[in-house]
């Protein structure tokens, strides 16, 4: 893990716009910056553009206009073959988990290590440890179809953090779990944040945001970042 000094911007959006095909802009003039080592909520009502903003952050899309700078790299000027190296520094927890149904929990979590060419002996050592940490020590060989929603979510989180990313993006990570598990996951994210990982948790769960009221938030509404509440953050619009 190559954590940056806290305070430097790990990600910056300048007047970013996004449209799908010839449709209307789903993101308009989005401008903000997230300091390294920070922990933010990304809030907003359903359909506000949270997932689209996250997709831009995890390089699943390129903006239609504007500038996205990630790890000091202007994405518009980054060659396609250079993107995997940047993506490996990002962990993503997808809203629908996106686990591979034909693989076991262990193999799903091992994926980020396998694409990096990590030795199988290392994988067999670290992945069970992490799965045990998220309470799935007895589900190593289970396929996602046999797991509950909460268990799938924990596998998805384990997959996102196994590579010790610099930036962790989680889309509604507590959406399918009960309050107890949701709190455990949030504490897990806080632990990771203390270790230096920058974290963005997208949620429309106001109760959760209020429970962690000390954390800053980026609020998005109608495709525009309307409010940023953070003492150490850049300006919003």
């Amino acid at each position, binding site marked *: 893990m190559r954590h940056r000094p806290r305070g430097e911007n790990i990600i910056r959006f300048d007047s970013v716009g996004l449209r799908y095909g010839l449709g209307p802009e789903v993101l308009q003039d989005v401008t903000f910056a997230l300091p390294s080592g920070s922990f933010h909520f990304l809030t907003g009502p359903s359909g506000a553009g949270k997932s689209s903003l996250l997709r831009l952050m995890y390089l699943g899309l390129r903006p239609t206009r504007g500038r996205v700078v990630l790890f000091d790299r202007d994405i518009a000027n980054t060659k396609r073959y250079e993107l995997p190296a940047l993506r490996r520094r990002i962990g*993503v927890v997808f809203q629908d988990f996106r686990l591979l149904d034909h693989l076991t929990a262990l193999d799903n979590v091992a*994926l980020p290590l396998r694409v*990096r060419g990590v030795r199988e002996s290392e994988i067999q050592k670290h992945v069970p440890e992490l799965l045990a940490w998220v309470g799935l020590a007895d589900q190593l060989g289970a396929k996602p179809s046999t797991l509950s929603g909460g268990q799938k979510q924990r596998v998805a989180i384990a997959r996102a953090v196994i590579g010790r990313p610099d930036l962790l993006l989680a889309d509604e990570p507590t959406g399918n779990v009960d309050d107890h598990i949701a709190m455990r996951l949030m504490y897990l994210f806080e632990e990771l944040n203390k270790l230096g990982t920058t974290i963005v948790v997208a949620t429309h769960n106001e109760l959760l945001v209020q429970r962690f009221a000390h954390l800053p938030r980026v609020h998005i509404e109608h495709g525009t970042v309307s409010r940023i509440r953070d003492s150490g953050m850049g300006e919003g619009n």
Partner: protein
Amino acid sequence: MFGRHSDLPLAGDATSRFLPWLVALMVFMASMAVAGAFVINEVITRWDRDVSGTLTVQVLPAGGEQAEAATDERVRLAVDVMRKVPGVVAVKAFDKRRTLALLEPWLGSTDVVQDLPLPRLIDVTIDPGARLDLAEVSERLSGAVPGASLDDHRVWLSRLVNLSRTVQWLAVVVVVLIGAVTSATVVYGTRTGMAVHHGIIEVLHLIGAHDDYIARQFADRAFALGIAGGLMGLGMAVPALTAIGWAARRVEGGFLPSLGLPILGYVAIGLLPLLAAGLAMLTARLTVHGTLSRMP
């Protein structure tokens, strides 16, 4: 290559069911074409070897009352002329009985043609290293012996060689077309597989997999299916070629030279499954790279 980890569930794809059979058919047809090309090459080489170093003198029969004796005299003169040519090793005239025997396979009983005036043949063997001026020898021969002409078989052989070479090129074209069809099928199968597994590919992509990491998995699968299909095709081709060889040996007698496949032919046919699998692997890899290059 085999046993490498794969994140994509390609084993259950439709491609896994039809590609081996298609490759088997392609390898079978390619084996036939390659065997044909090698056999033809062998035949040409043998004809060339048999014919080079020999000449044939044809002596037309004389007319008149003593036609037979006059023709014999012409043959004797022609033999004398040819024996004096430097580089000639042996001269052997065929008598009328031997000439009739040569016609027998085509005409059946030679009783009906026994009284016809048949041209007589003289078989001339020359030293393969000798440089004969055939035009000069031919002129000398026809000057000395009325009705005698020299045939060095070149016109006949060159036409036959041209025909054989055309057939050989046709075999090469067939093999290339078979390769193209195999590639097109692999492209279609790979694109279908990518569409079916789009979600998984996107996840791999987003967690930082290089294009080649994904392409390798499709390529490995295509190779495994190609080699399985190729071996099936080879398994079908070997008995078929054996049967054709057996049937050919039964009709060879005098009309065709021996239709044996040279060692190189066996090696080429044995390599076809590997070539087909390699082609499938390369095609799959390039197809995946081409398709992924359109992803962000």
